[in-house]
């Protein structure tokens, strides 16, 4: 950031005590590749408008779209307009829109078209002149990963990736998947790092932009209440779940052969694990935060034998929530013989003094009971209960649950006396909901992340080391599944996964929480 470059100079108008002053990005522009895609229309464009509406984009901000469509800038503007109208979080304000729309540009072309990239380069230069974007540009690659090499090459060839002088910046934003195993991830990192230095690469894991995920750090490190019990003395095990109720219709091209473990566990779930298990960073600077995350990922290892500690499944057709749905192999575009797993569960341990012996169960799946992402920390039973067994029959294990989505918040479960003349203890829940205790107005994950890219604030973006380490953790599971040569276990749509997943926990006398 500029502040760093200008060592010794402090802005007299800023003061750490002045908490009202928002962080506004300096003069800059954003170029989106794959601007016609779903993500771009549903998330990126609305997020950019919302940022503008909140006054967090610099005056003169420029948004350039790059796609194959034969559009004029005006058509592009209309597409953004429709996307903003349909999906923006904040109310539509004409004055804000007019200013934003002045900075729209569209460049038509395909990724292998040298001429198109030269035109893009010219457009970006023109923006520097007309809109004062100051040579600061971010490139958002909302494109399939197999197009990364050619786009990166083009960005290098056309000079778009080159920053002139220390005061300018060029950054690249990439979305998952970051490869499909360790080797491909390394290859991808090399391609990207060949063109952009690592500190200019922003890998988006939109989970990390969510308030609840950042709140994990606040809950753990700003409170005295939880940290003393946040270790293997008190914690029995941890369950991290990401469930979706939708199927994979229409996503065959990406998903077939990839599967749930690569799609979700490698990135989202291991990142959530890092947040929940990491040690306290010495400060909240991005370097310290990433150092702690990397440390905990390095200490994470699979628990074997993999036959017993992992499970995979594939949904079969049936009735789900009043709707007849096809099984994976009947979905359009999927191989009828497809062995792709749509449910995956693994067991890992974190080899540190804090977590020794505490299993972390990670599971994800499509067409499960409902859409929910949560982290449940399940505590051990009290070592001694001064009650008769009959009094505590209904007492389960205490639990601390971070609800990541939907209905963001925190739930605690503990035993409480049932009103009446006898002593009977039953589980009750205590709830903290973000929606009721703060804000309907909490920003979307993409708003936060895009702003962080423009500000050059990297805390919430995983570095290549984390990505590669996550593959190192997961790769043996996938290889093991392949080597086994069996098919994933079928589970009915709308259930909570195959029986093998329940058995996987039952072996240690545990059960999955119904989220």
């Amino acid at each position, binding site marked *: 950031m*500029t*502040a760093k*470059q*200008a060592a010794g*100079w402090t*802005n*007299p*108008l*800023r*003061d750490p*005590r*002045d*908490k*009202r*002053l*928002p962080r*506004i*990005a*300096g*003069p800059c522009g954003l170029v989106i590749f794959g601007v016609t895609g779903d993500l771009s229309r549903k998330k990126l464009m609305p997020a950019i408008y919302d940022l*503008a509406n909140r*006054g967090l984009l*610099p*005056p*003169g901000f420029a948004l350039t779209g790059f796609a194959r469509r034969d559009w004029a800038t005006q058509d592009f503007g209309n597409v953004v307009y429709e996307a903003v109208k349909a999906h923006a979080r904040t109310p539509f*304000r004409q*004055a*804000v829109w*007019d*200013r934003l729309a*002045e900075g729209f540009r569209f460049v038509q072309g395909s990724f292998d078209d040298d001429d198109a990239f030269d035109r893009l380069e010219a457009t970006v230069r023109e923006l520097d*002149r*007309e*809109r*004062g974007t*100051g040579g600061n540009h971010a490139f958002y690659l909302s494109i399939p990963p197999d197009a990364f090499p050619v786009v990166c090459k083009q960005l290098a060839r056309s000079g778009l990736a080159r920053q002139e002088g220390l*005061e300018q910046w060029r950054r690249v934003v990439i979305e998952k998947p970051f490869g499909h195993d360790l080797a491909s991830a390394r290859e991808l990192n090399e391609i990207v790092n060949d063109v952009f230095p690592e500190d200019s690469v922003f890998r988006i894991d939109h989970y990390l932009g969510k308030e609840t995920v950042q709140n994990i750090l606040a809950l753990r490190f700003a409170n005295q209440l939880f940290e003393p019990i946040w270790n293997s003395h008190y914690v029995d095990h941890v369950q991290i779940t990401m469930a979706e109720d939708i199927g994979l219709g229409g996503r065959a091209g990406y998903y077939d052969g990839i599967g749930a473990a690569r799609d979700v566990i490698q990135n989202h779930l291991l990142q959530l694990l890092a947040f929940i298990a990491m040690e306290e960073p010495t400060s909240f600077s991005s370097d310290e935060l990433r150092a702690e995350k990397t440390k905990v990922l390095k200490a994470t290892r699979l628990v074997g034998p993999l036959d017993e500690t992992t499970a995979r499944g594939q949904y079969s057709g049936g009735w789900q929530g009043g709707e007849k749905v096809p099984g994976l192999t009947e979905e359009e575009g999927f191989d009828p013989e497809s062995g792709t797993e749509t449910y995956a569960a693994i067991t890992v341990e974190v080899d540190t003094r804090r977590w020794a012996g505490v299993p972390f169960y990670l599971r994800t799946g499509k067409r499960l009971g409902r859409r929910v992402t949560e982290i449940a920390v399940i505590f051990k039973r009290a070592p001694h209960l001064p009650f008769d067994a009959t009094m505590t029959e209904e007492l389960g294990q205490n639990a601390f649950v971070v609800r990541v989505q939907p209905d963001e918040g925190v739930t605690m479960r503990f035993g409480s006396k049932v009103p009446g003349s006898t002593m009977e203890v039953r589980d009750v829940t205590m709830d*903290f*909901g973000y929606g*009721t*205790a*703060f*804000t*309907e*107005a909490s920003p979307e994950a993409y708003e936060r992340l895009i702003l962080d890219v423009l500000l050059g604030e990297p805390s919430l973006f995983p570095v290549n080391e984390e990505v590669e380490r996550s593959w190192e953790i997961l790769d043996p599971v996938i290889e093991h599944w392949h080597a086994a040569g069996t098919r994933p276990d079928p589970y009915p749509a709308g259930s909570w996964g195959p029986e093998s997943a329940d058995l996987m926990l039952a072996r240690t006398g545990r059960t999955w929480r119904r989220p």
Partner: protein
Amino acid sequence: MIVDLPSSTTSAVNRKLVELRESGGVQALGRVLTLVIITDDGPAIEGAIEAANSASREHPCRVIVLASGQRRAAARLDAQIRVGGDAGASDVIVLRGYGPLAAGEPAAGLVMPLLLPDAPVVAWWPGEAPAVPSEDAVGRLAQRRITDALSAKNPVKAFEQRRAAHVAGDTDLTWTRLTSWRALLATALDAPPHEDVTAAVVAGETVSPSTDLLAGWLAARLGVKVKRSPAANGPGLVSVVLQRPSGPVELVRPDGKIGSLRQPGQPDRLVALARREVRDCLAEELRRLDPDEIYGEALAGVARTTRGRTPVTVPAVSS
């Protein structure tokens, strides 16, 4: 749902609140603060409640509206409770005190039993405010006191009172209205060239406390000569010019809607800079419950500015 409790007492109101909570679920459990709105009885109440309800979407709160009714009347308290759809993410309690209950300690006594346990208390005077808010009977109950000099009958006098009576915890919406201006100016200085500002001129309507306050902020932060000039055109704050060796940084808004940021060697940049609505300002105010020291410094800085006589003319911004 709106429940009227005419000729009531605060214990009856409290009983009713518990009753409503038991029948209607867990309202008021997750409230993060109590907002006390002090106003005169009349049509202005609804506007204030609306702003509070909208702010409550960001900061769920209990809203207590203390509306002072007829002073020459028999002592009476008319209460009204609004929950659910009529109250946004808050519960609203309107207390209309008459006669001795219309003002002062007895009125503050009505508020006291209805404050949420533990949660901070914010007092807001959407119209006329007491000369010294921190010594007001209700103001003393609150950690934060929000006033609005611009909505007073005499904004200049109200602003003078704010300057004279400022204590930690006070803020005025004149300050909140400046946040986007201040953010743009600070961001402009973030970028190179990193030069010291040598002088500044702030121009706006003759009666515009916000303009005075921005000049005060610049004087306090920059420690250079800051001139507060009248503007020939435009409502409210119209222009800020920061002189630097390489040329001036200018932020102008001649029409009250669209601003233009001008810097040497760079194209002019337009920016939406409409005057902020009260509900946005209130939401921002509730975002922080600790004293705003920078505001205190800016108020003190007003004394260090000089008054210019020549009106500053700002040409219209072309879009």
